[in-house]
């Protein structure tokens, strides 16, 4: 029965992804003026013939619905067109940069959850204590700080002044690493490259903290909130009356129920992670998808921007799917 639900969610995801693609398709039509013109950077010394050729390459001479159909069919085949500035297929460029972005997102997520869970639980158990108040104040700060500024602040403190951590990049420029999966941490583990492991981890710290701070703040608050409610519930009363230890009561009986609304919120935070990802990559010079997009925007490389935005959205949809499935496992009332 659970399998049916999972398949159901998968099927629903397809029209959503199609819809996403359609919206992104219409993005390009937003540009005031001729897209090809803009891509060429108006006033470029390009012949009219060249422009015509480009126009037909981008199918701009065909009627709108035909363009859309071609666009979607190509997409289904994995073809997102060619990057204008780099003369290579967009899909390829994105695939090259994707592991870096995912590594950063995962790092941020792990950091965020590792921080949020203890804080959320302890704050709830010791409500109104100093720990609680400080944690909630910190959480408030966390959601009020723009990620780009936090990143710069951290660089200022840890890289410039204390010189503990590196400023930019993903790995030391003097370190050699053979990449297998594209995930530097994983690759250094797989190849037994200790120097690379240390270097890649050191480079991962500040960006992950920057990106994960907002997530940690929000998840901590939600977790605390639901824990408070669960700790006041009748079944916690029963657990204590049964003789369950205080630790088990909190960690097993209360937490299990508090996770249910929390997981939903974590799912929403993935969107924040993906969005903020662009900013953090720009701040830390992280060679991922975000950097690619920002460069592409300034270079007016529309196909690349289109492709990247779609990939981000698809990732978000996929992540929400995972969260949904997780939710059905956690909440016994959602079983068919």
């Amino acid at each position: 029965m659970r399998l049916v639900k999972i398949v159901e969610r998968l099927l629903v995801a397809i029209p959503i992804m199609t819809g996403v693609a359609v919206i992104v398709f219409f993005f390009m039509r937003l540009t005031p003026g001729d897209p090809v013109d803009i891509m060429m950077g108006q006033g470029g010394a390009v012949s009219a013939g060249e422009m015509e050729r480009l126009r037909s390459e981008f199918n701009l001479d065909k009627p709108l619905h035909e363009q859309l159909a071609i666009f979607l069919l190509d997409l289904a085949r994995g073809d997102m067109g060619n990057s204008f500035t780099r003369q290579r297929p967009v899909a390829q460029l994105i695939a090259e940069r994707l592991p870096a972005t995912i590594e950063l997102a995962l790092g941020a997520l792990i950091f965020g959850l590792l921080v949020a869970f203890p804080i959320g639980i302890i704050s709830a158990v010791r409500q109104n204590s100093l720990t609680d108040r400080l944690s909630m104040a910190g959480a408030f700060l966390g959601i009020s700080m723009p990620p780009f500024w936090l990143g710069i602040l951290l660089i200022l403190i840890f890289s410039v002044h204390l010189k503990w951590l590196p400023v930019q990049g993903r790995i030391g420029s003097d370190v050699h690493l053979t990449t297998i999966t594209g995930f530097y941490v994983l690759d250094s583990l797989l190849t037994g490259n200790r120097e690379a492991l240390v270097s890649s981890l050191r480079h991962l710290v500040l960006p992950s903290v920057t990106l994960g701070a907002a997530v940690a703040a929000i998840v901590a608050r939600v977790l605390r909130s639901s824990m408070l409610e669960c700790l006041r519930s009748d079944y916690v009363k029963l657990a204590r009356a049964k003789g369950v230890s205080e630790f088990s009561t909190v960690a097993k009986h209360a937490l299990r129920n508090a996770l249910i609304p929390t997981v939903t919120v974590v799912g929403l935070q993935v969107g924040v992670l993906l969005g903020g990802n662009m900013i953090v990559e720009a701040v830390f010079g992280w060679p991922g998808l975000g950097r690619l997009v920002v460069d592409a925007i300034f270079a007016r490389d529309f196909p690349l921007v289109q492709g990247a935005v779609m990939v981000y959205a698809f990732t978000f949809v996929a992540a929400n799917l995972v969260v949904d499935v997780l939710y059905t496992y956690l909440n016994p009332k959602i079983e068919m």
Partner: protein
Amino acid sequence: MATTTASESIPSWRYVWGVRWRLWRQNALEFWRELHKHPISVAGGVVMVAYVLAALFAEQITWHNPELGSLRNRLLPPAFVAGGSWDFPLGTDAQGRDLYTRIVFGARVSLAVGILSVAISMVVGVALGALAGYRRGRIDGLISRFADLLMAFPFLIFAIGMMAFLGPGFVNLILALTFKGWVEFFRLARGDMIAEGTREYVEAARVTGQKPWRIVVGEMLPNILPTIFVLTTLRIGFMIVTEASLSFLGLGIQPPTPAWGSMVADGRNHLLNAWWVSTMPGLAIVGLVLAINLFGEGLRDILDPRLKLE
């Protein structure tokens, strides 16, 4: 038993509005009392107002040109650091422009974008939400599907995508932010409207022959306003941060108009020797957003303790 005619038993509009005024006054007094219990939130509100006033009277409280500077004055430190002066209280940037002045003028941009985008999002979202929530059926389905689709995009990605194609500028920024911004309001309004629709007074109003629009606007809407108001306050902070992020990337407000985000970006190249260029504008953002969030929290506590979860 005496019989009554219809015109005697249904209270007149004057009476009804008299009751409503007294109820409102009661609520307002209670609100005032509640406000006293949340000193931190009130402090947040005061800071917010301070920012707004500073933005409005920017010319009066600054003495330098926000967009033009002299290279003689480049990268001067703030007043409390060695080498600084009170003429440039927060220091200067790489082009010799006074940071304090730019920050104050930058408040105009941030507040304008934040408030305007949230206001438009709210109006559009609540209108659509009320429509969808009250009417249900195909309209609801259509709009909800579209909203779901928009929600498949992370907010910043969508905004960046739109800005990439629209091009930078104030109007485009507002457009990009509201295009996705209305969805949250829509969902809240729709959910609340559906819940309200099951309440008895709606049925009663319908039975007495009230026109549907009067019911929605006159009766139901006021009841869902508190939660909408809370969401509005919280979203302003979010929009301000988003605008700053876009400006940071160079996709938002263009130079030389001062915008906090682009100011932080400008300072990146000078982190080693002039940390204040990036730090000061950032502090301004944090101050404003923190104040807004604190105020919004308190508001939420007072108006709707149900809304404890984000």
